[in-house]
């Protein structure tokens, strides 16, 4: 009776798949990362040396998030939601964001982006775009900047209430973007571990800060399904370049833009604690082509 019911199960696999797949969100395809299928609750890390367009990728992701799917008959292919941008690098340029948004609105389709952007002769004033949609998209972009890890932790702890407030207005947050997760690495590392009162007191160090960050983001992703994207600058230079210099081994020729490299062959030195490394589900390596800096 009870045992029989327990063995026979609640539903068949076909029924379960039918239920889940009908309500599941489709894969999030962010241009230009079309080949990387992402779902909400994935954590994507974009790694690269300093001038390698990581923030540009973040801005493109934010634009795809705030644009609607269709508007006035034009298909934009966006996710029609809010994007939250936490700027730890403090180098975000709103004029650049606004310009890219206008280009996206003017072109109306995603594949023409690269062609438009490379054309430097387009004057900013001559782009025709929908004012109302532009204002709507700009309002959907939430920005905060943090000057040290305490401000970052304070932001993360109060983010849940902010997202809940937005949900009360009927706005859904689809993306959490963090610019340069390793920005305060050196400052946290050099924080001296003075003997504090109370033996179990958590001291401020890279480990504890990042463990708390991972904990908070994990809780946020549980409560609000969204995609988390973080950029990370390589603080220690290019490992293959250094090793070629030291003649330790021949340069690695297995570079690819999408991370298909095993952990042993990473061309940069990983400095984030293991708590963060295990939290990341996808990693993308970027490098500028043919540049000495």
């Amino acid at each position: 009776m009870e045992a029989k019911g327990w063995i026979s199960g609640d539903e068949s696999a076909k029924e379960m798949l039918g239920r889940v797949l009908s309500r599941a969100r489709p894969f999030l395809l962010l241009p230009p990362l079309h080949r990387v299928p992402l779902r909400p609750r994935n954590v994507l890390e974009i790694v690269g040396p300093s001038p390698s367009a990581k923030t540009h990728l973040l801005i493109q992701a934010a634009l795809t998030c705030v644009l609607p799917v269709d508007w006035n008959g034009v298909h934009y292919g966006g996710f029609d939601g809010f994007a939250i941008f936490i700027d730890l690098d403090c180098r975000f340029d709103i004029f650049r964001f606004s310009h890219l948004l206008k280009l996206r609105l003017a072109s109306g389709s995603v594949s023409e982006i690269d062609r438009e952007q490379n054309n430097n002769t387009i004057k900013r004033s001559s782009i025709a775009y929908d004012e109302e949609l532009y204002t709507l998209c700009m309002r959907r972009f939430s920005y905060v900047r943090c000057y040290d890890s305490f401000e970052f932790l304070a932001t993360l702890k109060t983010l849940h209430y902010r997202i809940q407030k937005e949900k009360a207005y009927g706005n859904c947050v689809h993306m959490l973007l963090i610019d340069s997760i390793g920005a305060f690495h050196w400052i946290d590392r050099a924080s001296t571990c003075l003997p504090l009162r109370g033996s179990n007191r958590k001291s401020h160090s890279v480990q504890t800060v990042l463990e708390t960050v991972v904990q908070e983001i994990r809780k946020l992703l549980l409560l609000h399904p969204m995609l988390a994207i973080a950029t990370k600058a390589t603080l220690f230079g290019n490992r293959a370049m250094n090793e070629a210099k030291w003649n330790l081994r021949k340069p690695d020729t297995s570079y690819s833009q999408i991370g298909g490299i095993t952990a042993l062959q990473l061309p940069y030195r990983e400095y984030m604690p293991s708590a963060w490394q295990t939290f990341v589900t996808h990693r993308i390596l970027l490098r500028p082509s043919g540049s000495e800096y």
Partner: protein
Amino acid sequence: MAPLKSLEQEYPILDSNFQSFCASHDIFSVEDLLLHDLYVLAAFAEQESSSERLKQGIAQVLSIIDGQHQPWLNGIELLEDAQRNKHVLSTGCEGIDLLLHGGLRVGQLTELVGPSSSGKTQVCLLAASNVAKKHIGSVVYLDTGNSFSPQRVTQFICQHSDPAIDQAKHRTLQKVMNNISCKSVFDIFTMFDVLHQLEFNLRSQMQGGDCKVQLLIVDSVSSMVTPILGGSGSQGHALMISAGYLLKKLAHEHNIAVLVTNHTVGGDGGISKPALGESWKSIPHVRLLLSCDHGGSICNVSILKHPSMVESFASLFTMCAIDLSLSLSLSVRPFYKLFLLHMVFLFLFTLFNFFSSGCW
């Protein structure tokens, strides 16, 4: 960060009961609370006798934490603030202005990289004189190598003015020079002092007036940071990054354009690269590479990094050719003195040797 005890006066709900509850979980200050899981703490508070009051205390602390970070802004508010406050300051040098679409942007940190005697200090002096003269704002010049030259600044200011009555010209010159305040800093701790004092002054002073600081120049940041980098500790890097963030905070919050200079070191394959390493690369908004051809007055500036431009954009410009020779002679004179002194000593030495060997 404040210990919880000190918050009791302002927020009476954080009473001694709450403090002892927190102390039992090794939390003594707001900083500790940031590193703890507040939901777990609330769950522990459930088991206490005064759970309602404790949970209210936790909610109060959360609202205190909410005031600890910068305000949230949406895209429209950011754009309005940028359009209102973050304008562009012309450097006075057409080549650089052309490259940067107008000049130094307020709110951004611009770095000028170049080998020695490539004209970095000249560009800084030119920018200082131009901003003081044209933009009705004051300039703070932090000089690490005694390279600030008031004579050169006077040349830049008087260069383009029409030959008017001397007295009026003298008065405007004095007013403009009063707008430039030069401080000598020789180590990074003095620089932190100066910058914190500047931040305090800016925060406490009222808006308006023409003594608003528009431009902050640090010449050169690498000579202060390089001595502390290296070694096994990470304190040097931490100080460098903290200095960078302080400069960026001053730039953004108080609407100042910041210009710093950096020198170059040898890199892979003999190509020179900017000093201060990989970590510094993500601090400046804009990086410009400056190089002057040997003995000439034609300088080449190219972009290493810019938020909206690809590198390899370059432009050539001429630094005031006539006056360059003047400034060169000013700096060479002390060398002549030293050289003469050396010659005199050598002569006396050989004379002494001659006489002493002659006696024998």
